[in-house]
């Protein structure tokens, strides 16, 4: 009954552990964002081949403005998917949030901030309501939010009233999607972000060393940092050579970075993953599972309304069809294409950006080719099916590997 002999710590152990971890991740289906990035490269290559204007700075700038609303809605969807739930109401909340803002701003003459605030809080309230029904009465989330889809679309029609279309006049609201920052501002931001990322890596390595923990492979961290810095610098250079950095893109990135920090580095975020991975274990660990669920649905509603406001700002109007059509499906598709699992507990907020880029690129590229909606829907459907298949296959891999 004595303890086994302690293995002597070898120098090569660290390297072996690193390689072992990589092999385990791939064979067990933890593929992360690799498929979506490969997919994006492929899609861009095909469209560039078909139309040389696709990768022009002007079109890429347009693309970043076009994906802002879907990307923001998709951030909320990622959070809901991490719980292993779904929110089908985001399209209607997108429409209602923008309608509330438009009516208050244009018809009631409210100032900018209260009008936008009221639109956003409408989404928060609706999300909280869904979360309450889901947790209190244990109705499956897809049914609660399906009822929401119908109800809030009706509310949107009611709020818009007889006229049907409201043209936005408030300059601040229309600037949300229409404003561009000068290349100088863009470069300052880019350098600042790269510097913060670098400092973060150094601080974390030093903290691990101080705590006497084995260090993470330096090579991997440097490669990751260089790749991310190159993407940031490259994107800034492209945007700077056209009209500058779109405010819509900065708003989207701000939400993604903020929610990435919340999901990966705070207790709230950790608890979202815990509830999505094993709700019973989370409950036994003293986590208030229902509070987490209600908070996440509230955030999903909030992000949907913010996305609606961004969309309204881009189109300069709100009407009966705002938020209808493919908004809901594109937002869910973006999250899943980006690599967030439909089965809960696995994913990252960044999949909202990468997935929205894929969906946006398909829409944008096909529009450049003057393709009609028929092709667009079929291509998007095919890409979604491919993404979900990767998710499902990866899950089977995990189950095989995970005993």
């Amino acid at each position, binding site marked *: *009954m004595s303890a086994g002999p302690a293995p002597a710590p070898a120098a090569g152990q660290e390297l072996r552990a690193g390689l072992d971890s990589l092999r385990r991740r791939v064979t067990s289906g933890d593929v992360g964002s690799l498929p979506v990035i490969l997919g994006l490269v492929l899609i861009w290559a095909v469209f560039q081949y078909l139309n040389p204007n696709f990768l022009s700075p002007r079109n890429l700038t347009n693309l970043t403005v076009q994906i802002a609303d879907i990307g923001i809605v998709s951030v909320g969807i990622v959070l809901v998917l991490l719980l292993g739930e779904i929110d089908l109401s985001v399209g209607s909340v997108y429409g209602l949030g923008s309608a509330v803002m438009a009516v208050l701003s244009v018809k009631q003459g409210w100032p900018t901030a209260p009008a936008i605030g009221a639109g956003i809080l409408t989404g928060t309230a609706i999300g909280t309501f869904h979360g309450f029904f889901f947790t209190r009465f244990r109705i499956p989330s897809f049914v609660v939010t399906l009822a929401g889809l119908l109800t809030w679309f009706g509310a949107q029609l009611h709020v818009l009233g007889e006229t049907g279309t409201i043209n936005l006049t408030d300059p601040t609201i229309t600037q949300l999607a229409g404003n561009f920052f000068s290349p100088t501002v863009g470069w300052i931001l880019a350098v600042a972000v790269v510097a913060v990322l670098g400092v973060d890596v150094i601080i974390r390595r030093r903290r691990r060393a101080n*705590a006497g923990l084995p260090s993470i492979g330096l090579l991997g961290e440097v490669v990751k940092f260089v790749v991310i810095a190159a993407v940031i610098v490259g994107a800034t250079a492209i945007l700077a050579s056209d009209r500058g950095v779109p405010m819509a893109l900065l708003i989207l990135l701000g939400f993604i970075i903020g929610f990435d920090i919340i999901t990966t580095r*705070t207790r709230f975020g950790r608890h979202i*993953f815990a509830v*999505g991975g094993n709700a019973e*274990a989370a409950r036994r660990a003293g*986590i208030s599972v229902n509070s987490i669920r209600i908070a996440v649905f509230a955030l999903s509603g909030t992000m949907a309304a913010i996305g609606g406001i961004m969309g309204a700002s881009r189109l300069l109007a709100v009407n009966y069809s705002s938020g209808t059509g493919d908004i809901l499906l594109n937002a869910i598709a973006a999250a899943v294409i980006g690599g967030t699992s439909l089965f809960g*507990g696995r994913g990252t907020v960044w999949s909202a950006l990468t997935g929205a880029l894929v969906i946006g690129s398909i829409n944008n590229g096909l529009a450049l080719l003057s393709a009609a909606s028929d092709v667009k829907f079929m291509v998007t459907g095919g890409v979604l099916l491919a993404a979900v298949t990767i998710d499902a296959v990866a899950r089977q891999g995990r189950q095989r590997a995970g005993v």
Partner: protein
Amino acid sequence: MTETGGWPEGHPPPASEARQPLLQLRGISKRFGAVQALSDVDFEVYPEEVVALVGDNGAGKSTLIKTMAGIYIPDSGEIWFEGKHVPVHGPRDSAALGIATVYQDLALSDNLDVVANLYLGREEVSSPLPLISEEKMEFRAREVLKSLDVKIPNPRNPVAALSGGQRQSVAVARSVMWKAKVVLLDEPTAALGVQQTKQVLELVLRLKHQGIGVIVISHNLANVFEVADRIIVMRLGKRVGTFVRSESSEEAVVGAITGAEFGKFKPQE
């Protein structure tokens, strides 16, 4: 020290009777509708002791464990902890006393790594920004795993990648992490292979040597005889026998479990 229930005839009191029990249940009764799940049951576990709780299905083992864990509130009877009569009105009271339960289904989150699971619900955060202190948590997690001699290649790997024995060890380590004084293990070796069973049994003994009172429910008498200091037998909601491991045989325990005369039955797996 007072024993309200007394020992069944023919079984000696434990060698450690002079010491004060860590956790003691006195005259516990619990009824579910028409079923009397527990009737006037006494139970005690001492520091640095492994007690096995055995009995056939429906004997009341799980009900008794859940009473200790605060999940069931007994209809009558008292719970004493370290010599004091304590109120236990729910799982939180029980946890606050230092009673930790490791359930059969382990209650781990597969998608989170070992460190995150050990700290689940009690993550440490820094100030002023309330961000999780990963380094502090990982350091302590490695320490606890080492103190229990639990071998896990990298505590940053998700729990899904671990073997059954390693998962059981992580679940047990979580109780030690939070200074449990009494650890309840429900069928800790039920789903494990030979090698992993051995690991878990060694872990049980290491818990004991850290001064913890360990209560193990098991159907496997071979395992029970390997680790338990005392064996308490339940039948039909009553405590029907107490055996000191060193002075008893598996045949005698099986007899008490089935209610048959001692020695007539060979123990089964």
